[in-house]
């Protein structure tokens, strides 16, 4: 059984084929890195997996369950969480409230119009715990608008982790970070327990190589190479894609 599999997945925008008959399977607990140059179709692939885009053809399987037709809002409830390459947070709220919203998304409490949200101690505690994992616990009460870019990136990750996903999709978690921040995020990501399957997008070759068990190289929407870290790095087609850029 694989944690996540896509079969013959295709998507075009107008005449542009952005996902071209993509196949791969990620084993439970695996760390999969998806690399490819700008515009290779990596983010589109994530959007197809999470259901934010509907594929033209093919299917998506989560723990062998076909979820291709499942509305995207139901997928987090099955243990799929994602972060966004372009930060997509709640700028009017505090960091803590951002994290609480992530928890609320999976809680039946989200339909309750009578309770006081700030009195939901278990939600607050869980949100704080998620923020502590990314090192933001002390600044939980700070309005999101007053945080740095690097902190926002970590809020993105904290919100995904807060949902205790079985499959975690990270879209360029290192994008725009300083060297110090990269180191922090790297150790944060390597601390994620192995009962979570991680699929991570990076467009640089080197940034996240050491975090990956297996690597899938996308180019013009197609899988060019797939294999272990050593296999992909050694493959001449990899060099071709990255040198040809």
């Amino acid at each position, binding site marked *: 059984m694989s944690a996540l599999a896509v079969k013959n997945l295709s998507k075009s925008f107008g005449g542009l084929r952005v996902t071209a008959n993509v196949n791969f399977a990620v084993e439970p607990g695996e760390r999969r890195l998806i690399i490819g140059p700008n515009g290779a179709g990596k983010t589109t692939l994530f959007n197809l997996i999470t259901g934010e885009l509907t594929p033209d053809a093919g299917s998506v399987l989560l723990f062998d369950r076909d979820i291709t037709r499942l509305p995207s809002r139901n997928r987090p409830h099955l243990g799929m969480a994602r972060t966004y390459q372009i930060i997509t947070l709640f700028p009017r709220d505090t960091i803590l409230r951002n994290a609480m919203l992530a928890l609320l998304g999976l809680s039946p409490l989200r339909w309750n119009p009578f309770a006081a949200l700030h009195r*939901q101690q278990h939600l607050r505690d869980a949100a704080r715990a998620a923020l502590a994992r990314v090192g933001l616990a002390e600044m939980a009460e700070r309005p999101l608008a007053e945080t740095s870019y690097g902190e926002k990136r970590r809020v993105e990750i904290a919100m995904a982790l807060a949902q205790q996903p079985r499959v975690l999709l990270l879209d360029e978690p290192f994008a725009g970070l300083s060297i110090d921040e990269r180191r922090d995020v790297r150790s944060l990501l390597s601390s994620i327990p192995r009962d979570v399957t991680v699929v991570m997008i990076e467009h640089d070759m080197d940034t996240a190589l050491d975090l990956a068990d297996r690597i899938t190289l996308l180019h013009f929407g197609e899988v060019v190479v797939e294999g272990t870290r050593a296999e992909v790095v050694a493959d001449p087609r990899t060099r071709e894609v990255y040198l040809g850029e």
Partner: protein
Amino acid sequence: MTVRYALLAAAILALIAVPYAITEQYYVNIASQILLYAVFALGLNILVGYGGLVSLGHAGLSGAASYAAAYLLAAGHGHVVAIAGALAAGLLTTAGFAALSLRASGISFIMITLALGEIIWGLAYRWISITNGDNGISVATRPAPFGLSLASADGFYDATLIVFLIAVAACAIFVHSPFGAALAGTRDQPRRMNALGFHVWMVRFWAFMFSGLLSAVAGILFVYYNEFISPQALALTASAEGLLMVISGGAGTLLGPVVGAALVVIVKNVVSAYIARWNFLLGAIFVLIVVFMPEGLVPGSVRLFRAAWRGARRRKPAAAAAAPASMPAGEPKP
């Protein structure tokens, strides 16, 4: 926190005291109008301020309730039946509005609600066998709950005040609830809300229903206050006026719509006695608010008050140190 409760208690006491302090019936009636329009604006604000969905058809919702009550009363039913029927009609109309308009958001949403509001207005105008067309429907009596007559200006004010306070409390509970947080989330970042597992459409639908419930309540108050309903109450201008109340007072704040309702009702009724072109005055006030307090009167005043307070506190030590008074605002020097 305790300051806030003290202010709240003082405000409620002041509202209760209105009929005693103001002996002139005319002004008590104005106060009733403010409160009933405030209920309408509170309902609209749920959708506009907290949901980010601007409706230009809300007078159709309150109007449906008003007409249902007037029709049932004219048909000889009692007040209980009329009020229950009015709430049902208001909620059914709201459900229809929501189902049709929530396919869209942004400008399209505004246009759909506008069109739906116009349809309700057209029905009121043309469906003469039910609505009596242009002539409207008169209501003979006001209800007398628990033997308390609402026939007098004071009696009606008291009843309206109770309904108003319940509406404010309901809104306060709603916006601080998990569901209220979900609604604000769908306003700020619908895509992320969906990815977090929220049913964005359904959240908006139930918010619309709550908004419609308050509109219906306002419609019932309206028809009893005027003891009359005609298509004019459902016109686009009525919906736009509601929006004006919400935006001028402060969309997405609890009390902004109440202040906005007071502003509009006072300019419309009181100032119009002295200035023939009150419409012009209202427009001018609105422009001033948008220019100087784009966030609305309530949050704008809070901002100015805080700035003044901070400025005053900074000036004291600054004066003691004989520092120049013209320090850059908002940047406390070490």
